[in-house]
């Protein structure tokens, strides 16, 4: 899966996980997820951390990294690409 596909997949998963009433095309990948933009809050942050663990098997080692990682769909995609374990075979 290339980066663009990952971004689109993330948009879809965020909508499903958080039950957002928007379409993937409504989410701008570079826009902030919290406060402005989609207006997500701290409960949503926990949902996104679980999403990342369940779907991509990536654990956020340092809680301080959270605001940077979950800044936008773009930053989430970059973090996943940088931390994903290469598939065997």
């Amino acid at each position, binding site marked *: 899966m290339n980066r663009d596909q990952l971004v689109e997949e993330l948009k879809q998963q965020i909508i499903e*996980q*958080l*039950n*957002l*009433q928007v379409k993937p095309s409504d989410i701008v990948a570079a826009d902030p997820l919290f406060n402005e933009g989609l*207006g997500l809050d701290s*409960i949503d942050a*926990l*949902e996104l951390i*679980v999403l990342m*663990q*369940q779907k991509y098997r990536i654990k956020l080692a340092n809680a301080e990294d959270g605001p940077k990682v979950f800044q936008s769909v773009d930053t989430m995609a970059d973090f996943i690409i940088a931390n994903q374990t290469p598939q065997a075979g």
Partner: protein
Amino acid sequence: MFINGASAISPLPVFDAVSAGVNVVPVLTQRGKVTEPDYGSLIDQKLIRRMSRIIRMGVATAMDALKQAGIQDPDAILTGTAYGCLEDTGIFLKRLVENKEEMLTPTAFIQSTHNTVGAQVALLLKCHSYNNTYVQRSHSFELSLMDARLWLTENPGSSVLVGAADELTDYSYALLERFAQFRNQWGGEGAAYFLVQSESNSASWARIEQIYTLFQPDLEEITAFATKLSEEQNGIDLLLSGMESGDVNADQYARIHGFIGEDIPVIHYKQYCGSYPTATAFACWLGAFWLKTGKVDAGSLQLNAPKRILIYQTDSMGYHSFILLKSC
């Protein structure tokens, strides 16, 4: 205490009954789902997405009752629910099993507790006042009302938001049906909230004159209460009865009807809202609505200028409750 604002969501489309009117006709179904209003105008869109059905209908009726009474910050919020937030509880438990007790998401867990509806109302209002939820099977709503009455006795000038909510989910419907719960009466759900105060005003719906509950009483106890009620009240115009078709407690309902007067017309309110533990909250809304409009209009039964409506319900567990409403 006086009902100065009231709102209900039920299988019958009653939410905007005061402005739009309501055709009170029996609902023919096996599983009654509430007719939901457009929540967009009542609850912030960003918050709705996280709310399950029981929370949405509870919050919407609470906000509507407050709006009618012109109150923004009630002094107490009291809620009755028998089953609580079943949908969120089901989601949480399912994920608990599927994910082998790991990586559980917070939303369903946070919202699975019984006091979520009252808590959400308080959060939306930023209300830090007394907030309590009563979970006592079919007495859940009645106990909330009793607490409201106690609160108003101690704090006469205050406002209390009191109501009840219960939902029927796919799981609970399947389970309750397996226990033959809906053999005689279709399964229902709903929410109703009331803004009550110790003084009436021009917007008042009705006065709650009596609330009385009994648990597994002997015949003498219940006979004494029903006889006393009948003598004291000097004329009850309508009995809103919780009796279901083919009810195993039909004799008990008939006995109460006999005590208060066999010639008093009866309406079985569960034909409109279905069977669920806090259905008396709907009956309370319906009775108050008829007293406010000055007319009982239920198809073949029409009554003009009703003054007193008695709500009575009992069940096979031995819970009995009486709520007497009086016109203002």
